[in-house]
């Protein structure tokens, strides 16, 4: 087990308004979320001395303008003018979970005391994957000429392989979409709060990239979320009950850029990250009380459940049936609604929910008696990370 388990905790969490289109610059959303997280902790902004983020916009063909389409560390520094800042970083080989892990490392190293991590997401006007180019450069020269555009198709091809090799039926995925939307009705910050979804809605929705229909895809939104991390001893002096980080991992697998459609890329990415997390925390999938697994596309949950070890390969669509992922089920899953419910903010919201469930702060969606809280933040491929939070340090 990891010597540093439960030495760092998530304290406060914060949210901006989430909307389809921006009426204020993204920087203002990020600021709202950061202020919210600091206030939730009961801290003053001047206490914050560490900053970390992952500022990518996953859309294609749109200008990257700091403060409007992304919110970098520099942008946040300029806004906050933190008098006691001692550390900051942006990550690249992992999505936002990597920024959280770097903040953990900085806190363990003693180079900061209270770190803020945020994820701000823009929804550009016009077509999200804007692909007007007459030429295909780099790795896309082997994919774009065949109509492979956004990440959805890359995920979709792996999903057809999974479905047909395992003799499975995409209609079983309705259970995931409907259950997560049900959970969303307990999360007033989510985009789809107040908008239920039925199985009939799922079956009637238009196909986007087979096997994905509309409700297999998270909806692009503008918004931001943020967390405060600190050392366990400091966290115990703050207002919220701490969510202790018992272990974490990151994907250790990469296949040559442009190699699309490889199911092994997802499965080995996920299993390599989870192995680190189980070993460091000392827990196994059987010990988990509640799980958040990244769901930008629904099939990510399949790859997650299987590669993290919650069920065997080929079984995930059966695993999620019969109430197992309901709030009172055997493995309550994406209890905040997931990205399918909140809108596309990437994995930090999964991390927030993992922390809230561990510390008993999840309100009407709280899983009773939850202690061991698992998070797979981001798709297991390329940028995936995993975490275990606990309410009771050990």
């Amino acid at each position, binding site marked *: 087990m990891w010597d540093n388990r439960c030495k760092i905790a998530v304290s406060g969490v914060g949210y901006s308004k989430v909307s389809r289109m921006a009426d204020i610059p993204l920087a203002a959303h990020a600021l709202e979320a950061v202020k919210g997280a600091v206030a939730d902790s009961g801290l003053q902004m001047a206490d914050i001395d560490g900053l970390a983020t992952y500022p990518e916009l996953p859309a294609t063909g749109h200008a990257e303008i700091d403060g409007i389409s992304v919110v970098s560390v520099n942008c946040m520094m300029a806004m906050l003018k933190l008098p006691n800042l001692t550390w900051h970083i942006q990550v690249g080989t992992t999505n936002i979970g990597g920024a959280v892990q770097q903040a953990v490392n900085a806190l363990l190293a003693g180079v900061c005391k209270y770190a803020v991590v945020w994820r701000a997401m823009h929804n550009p006007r016009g077509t999200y994957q804007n692909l007007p180019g007459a030429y295909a450069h780099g790795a896309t020269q082997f994919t774009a000429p065949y109509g492979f555009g956004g990440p*959805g198709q890359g995920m979709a091809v792996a999903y057809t392989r999974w479905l047909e090799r395992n003799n499975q039926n995409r209609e079983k995925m309705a259970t995931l979409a409907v259950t997560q939307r049900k959970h969303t009705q307990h999360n007033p910050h989510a985009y789809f709060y107040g908008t239920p979804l039925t199985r009939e809605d799922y079956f009637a929705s238009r196909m986007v990239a087979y096997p994905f229909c509309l409700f297999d895809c998270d909806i692009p939104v503008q918004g931001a979320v943020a967390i405060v991390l600190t050392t366990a001893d400091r966290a115990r002096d703050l207002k919220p009950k701490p969510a202790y980080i018992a272990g974490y991992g990151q994907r250790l697998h990469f296949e040559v850029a442009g190699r699309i459609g490889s199911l092994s890329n997802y499965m080995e990415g996920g299993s390599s990250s989870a192995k680190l997390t189980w070993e460091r925390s000392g827990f196994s999938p059987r010990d988990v009380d509640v799980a958040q697994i990244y769901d930008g596309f629904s099939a990510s949950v399949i790859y997650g459940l299987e590669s993290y070890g919650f069920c065997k390969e080929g079984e995930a669509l059966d695993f999620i049936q019969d109430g197992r992922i309901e709030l009172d089920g055997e493995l309550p899953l994406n209890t905040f609604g997931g990205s399918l419910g909140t809108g596309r903010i990437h994995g930090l919201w999964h991390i927030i929910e993992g922390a809230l469930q561990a510390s008993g702060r999840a309100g009407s969606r709280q899983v009773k008696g939850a202690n061991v809280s698992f998070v797979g933040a981001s798709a297991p491929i390329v940028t995936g990370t995993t975490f275990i939070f606990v309410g009771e340090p050990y």
Partner: protein
Amino acid sequence: MTMSDWSKVTRPIPVPNEWTRPFWDAARRGVLELQRCQACGHFQHPPYATCVQCMAIDLKFEPVRGGGAIYAYTIMYHTGDKRFAAAVPYASIVVELDEAPGALLAGNLLEVPYTEAKVGRRVEVIFEKLNDDITLPQFRLARAT
């Protein structure tokens, strides 16, 4: 009617670079060539700086017959990419060649309805000329041998 109409599609033109030029030069001649490690014999695609199996740097392009199976596919319905909007629904496929296990090639399934795309189905390479410089390897269902 389940045939995709490719006649109004404007495919983006691949831009060869120092790693990929031999692939496109061969395709222009109607030959499918893949990068092969001269140390361990491993075929790989897309081309890379080193052999991803044994780390050797002695890599050459060698012809393959171009028969294989559909490893995976998707049927595109979304019309966000205006270059391809006229063809929806269409099958974008990923092919694993018999001679190059693990080397995955993208393509479209041509000459048959898109509903014929299934994982494991046998396909063979054909060539689609885009301009004088670039010819795309493409796939159709394998004919009886």
